[in-house]
């Protein structure tokens, strides 16, 4: 396999910080126009990977090509052609929204007139035109995030890297960001994003990898991953707090044979099966009385739980 037609191509990619092995050998291949996701819990190595791909963090091992270029050799050339929305905002809070975009455009060697035109366009795109003259420190979290996204588009990047684009935003603000990212995707921009949120991954990505402890533990489209690693439906059962011991642990042993798989969470029991309602009915037949039941379709969260034994967001 060659790196030439890949936007991002990595083989055995590693990153260590002293004794900490943040990324422990991952293979990645992102194609033009694709929306690619890294899904994983805190400390999985998502940001470490993104920073290497953004050509601001030297790799510790393996191989990495971005747009066919080696970041160790052509860092600035790569950075001229990609857009980066880092996990932590790096906006200048004492400048206005417009000033932040304008000065950033200048870093790319673009003429002032060209940058001014793009700034107006991007303000419109992220719906911040009315806030153009506001100081960044006065913006809400969602607005700052949109500004960072706008900033990352000032050079018309071929690849857009987004590290947790919506973490910390309220649901409404998240939907605004999703909408903008979806439009970029439709326009053919290659998106690479990290997230802890399976709904975000399901909404935005064509293909994703699940990362845990520096390794890729699964790869595929959201639907493929669910089909491969989970059942069609999940029954969630919650039992009242018993007098002593682990109620859910005890119940789990009693219903083990009713589902393909049973997971015990601190507050509920998950029964994986093809038909959730039928499973719930069988539980009742055994004389067990959950205080609450919910039958739903499997999500990436279930895939993650299956693969790592942990939930993504606690």
């Amino acid at each position, binding site marked *: 396999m060659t790196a030439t037609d890949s936007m991002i191509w990595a083989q055995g990619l590693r990153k260590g910080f002293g004794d900490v092995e943040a990324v422990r050998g991952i293979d990645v291949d992102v194609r033009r126009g694709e929306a690619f996701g890294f899904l994983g819990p805190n400390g999985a190595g998502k940001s470490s990977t993104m920073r290497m791909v953004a050509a601001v963090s030297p790799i510790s091992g393996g191989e990495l090509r971005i747009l066919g270029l080696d970041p160790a050799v052509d860092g600035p050339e790569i950075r001229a052609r990609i857009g980066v929305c880092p996990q932590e905002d*790096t906006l200048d809070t004492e400048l206005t929204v417009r000033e932040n975009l304008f000065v950033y455009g200048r870093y790319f060697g673009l003429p002032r007139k060209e940058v001014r035109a793009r700034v107006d*366009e991007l303000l419109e795109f992220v719906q911040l035109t009315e806030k153009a003259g506001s100081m960044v420190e006065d913006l809400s979290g969602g607005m700052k995030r949109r500004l960072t996204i706008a900033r990352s588009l000032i050079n018309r990047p071929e690849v857009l890297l987004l590290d947790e684009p919506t973490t910390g935003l309220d649901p409404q603000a998240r939907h605004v960001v999703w909408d903008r990212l979806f439009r970029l995707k439709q326009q053919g921009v*290659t998106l690479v994003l990290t997230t802890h949120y399976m709904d975000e991954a399901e909404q935005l990505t064509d293909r994703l990898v699940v990362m845990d402890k520096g390794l890729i533990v699964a790869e595929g489209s959201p639907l493929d991953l669910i089909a491969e690693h989970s059942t069609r439906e999940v029954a969630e059962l919650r039992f009242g707090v018993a007098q002593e011991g682990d109620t859910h642990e005890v119940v789990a042993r009693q219903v083990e044979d009713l589902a393909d798989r049973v997971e015990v969470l601190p507050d509920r029991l998950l029964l994986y099966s093809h038909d959730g309602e039928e499973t719930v009915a069988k539980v009742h037949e055994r004389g067990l009385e959950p205080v609450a039941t919910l039958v739903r379709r499997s999500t990436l969260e279930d895939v993650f739980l299956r693969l790592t034994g942990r939930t993504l967001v606690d």
Partner: protein
Amino acid sequence: MAATTPGGAGSPDPARATAPASTLAGALRLLDYWLTVYRRTWKGTIVSSFVTPLLYVVAMGVLLGGFIEGDPAELEGATSYLAFVAPGLVAAQAMTTVIGETTYPVMDMVKWHKVYFGMIAAPLRVGDIMLAHLAFVLFRVALTSAVFLAVMAPFGVFSSVGGVLLAFLVQLLVGLAFATPVYAYAAGAKDESAFNLIFRLGMIPLFLFSGAFFPVANLDAPLELLATITPLWHGVDLTRMLTLGRVDVSAALVHVAYLVVLAALGWRWAARRLQRRLIA
């Protein structure tokens, strides 16, 4: 937006984003950033840049100087205390301006607001970022030094116009000699408590004992020796030679060489520390 799709494969783009061809070209891309910053902050720098120096001149030079006999033999050739202290004040002001600009502001860029991380994510390099920031610091030094020298000119403390112009250039060199090492220190410092060392053990003793206010010959021999190896003394002595018109060429060359070497070593140290901070 649709008409100007970002990243549309192969879309004709007359103004393509590129990597800068040189450190100077990279630093020039940061010009608009620093202009914007200065437009927003210049008002807040008026007092420290322009009013404080005036107060010093009046208090130290005119009022205190009134009690001090202007004996050229005692004052390194100056005919009044004001003429003696003026160049010392200018050089000390260059130092304090630089230390102010390369401590907290640099930490802000790498730790608090992390603005440098935004710059390095664009096609800029560590050297580009440093050069632009240090150029801004020198611009601030140039402005305050020019004002300072202009304010003192009417008091008749300068021997020649040429001497004053050279003394002005020397302030840029003094500024750079302090700027690069302090910048390096700040770029790698964990938190702002590290600056206590700079201010308490560096700036204040240098300010008081580097020959700005009294001839270092007044100190005991070991202390005098200590004073003459500090960078500020080299800056003060060089500035004073030029404003008094009593230039000892070989001593002047030693001063210049000392300051240039300090600036160069500081630059290398700063580049290493900033690289480690930004590219990890």
